[in-house]
């Protein structure tokens, strides 16, 4: 066993981390090695010196200060979801989203036609109200009347025309 290895083992031996076989080998080495004997003594002294470091007590105000700071914190950390929900960035983003949603909804409402969806007869009557329908109807009736006159066919009901035109 060389001294480097022996000194590594001394460190473990001091902490009670050495197996019995290694311990026997180490002690045999130390017995014949003044350098490793010195290292062992020095490290034992280091331990003794460090353990004699004076311990101190906390100041009497420690508890009071800690308690007031704890009261400010009060509850332990809430679950992650609620931490997120209470985060200022999340609040800002959610407000912005709500605003955008309201704006989009308003725009959509404005863009939609204000009139009720029309059924066929209503559309027809509206179409008629614009004048174009009447003219067109009158014109078509004229054409049909002429045709009938030429062909001698019986006259068709004018009520059928609007639906036929609507289909076109």
């Amino acid at each position, binding site marked *: 066993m060389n001294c480097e290895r022996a000194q590594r083992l001394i460190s473990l031996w001091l902490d009670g981390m050495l197996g019995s076989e290694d311990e026997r080998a180490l002690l045999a080495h130390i017995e014949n090695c003044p350098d490793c004997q010195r290292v062992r003594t020095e490290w034992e002294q280091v331990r003794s*010196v460090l353990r004699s470091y004076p311990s*101190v007590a906390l100041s009497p105000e*420690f508890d009071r200060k800690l*308690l007031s700071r704890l009261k400010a914190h009060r509850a332990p950390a809430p679950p992650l979801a609620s931490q997120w929900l209470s985060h200022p960035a999340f609040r800002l983003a959610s407000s912005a989203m709500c605003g955008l949603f309201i704006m989009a909804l308003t725009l959509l409402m404005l863009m939609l036609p204000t009139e009720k969806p029309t059924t066929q007869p209503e559309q027809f009557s509206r179409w008629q109200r614009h004048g174009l329908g009447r003219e067109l109807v009158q014109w078509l009736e004229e054409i049909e009347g002429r045709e009938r006159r030429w062909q001698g066919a019986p006259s068709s009901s004018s009520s059928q025309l609007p639906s036929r035109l609507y289909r076109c």
Partner: protein
Amino acid sequence: MRTEAFAVSSAATLLREAGESELLARCRTGDLEAFAQLVQRYRNRIFNLAWQLLGNRDDAEDVTQETFLQAFEHLSEFRGEAQMLTWLYRIAVNACKMKMRQRRFIEPLPEDFEPAEEIDWSAVEERWLLKRKIDTVLAKLSEPLRLVLVLREMHELSYDEIASVLGIPVGTVRSRLFEARRKFVQIWREMFGDEIR
């Protein structure tokens, strides 16, 4: 006799752990009184760790406060896999590292101190002199070496506990301790001569 003593100490440990888990459960509901009991149990060890690492009373108190505040705040994250003390040590060590990085050196020692236990007052001066020497040598060690040495020699933590506190493998703890002991002796010799006491 030895077996009996072990049985008694195991029973005491079990009792303490049972008491601790009950306290923890109460703390998790925001019970400050239960948390105060936990603080009382561990505050001196945490304070002395910070005191040994920082060498300054005010900073050590700050770190101790910070440690318990963080522990209270993050209690829901403590799953009980490690010991409560190991978990608190981890928080305290990180808080000390932050302080050390802010300062980058150990400040002059305070002149006043209050001993935690009854001591021989005639030896106070000698102990203060010794403390100064230890602080000086520790300050010259690198942070990783200083941490393992303090946790092992002054707090008597096992290799596994040190590994858990520092978040490093046990093999690294072993090699750092060897290196720390070697360096400590070397620095001591250079500064104060051969005799380590």
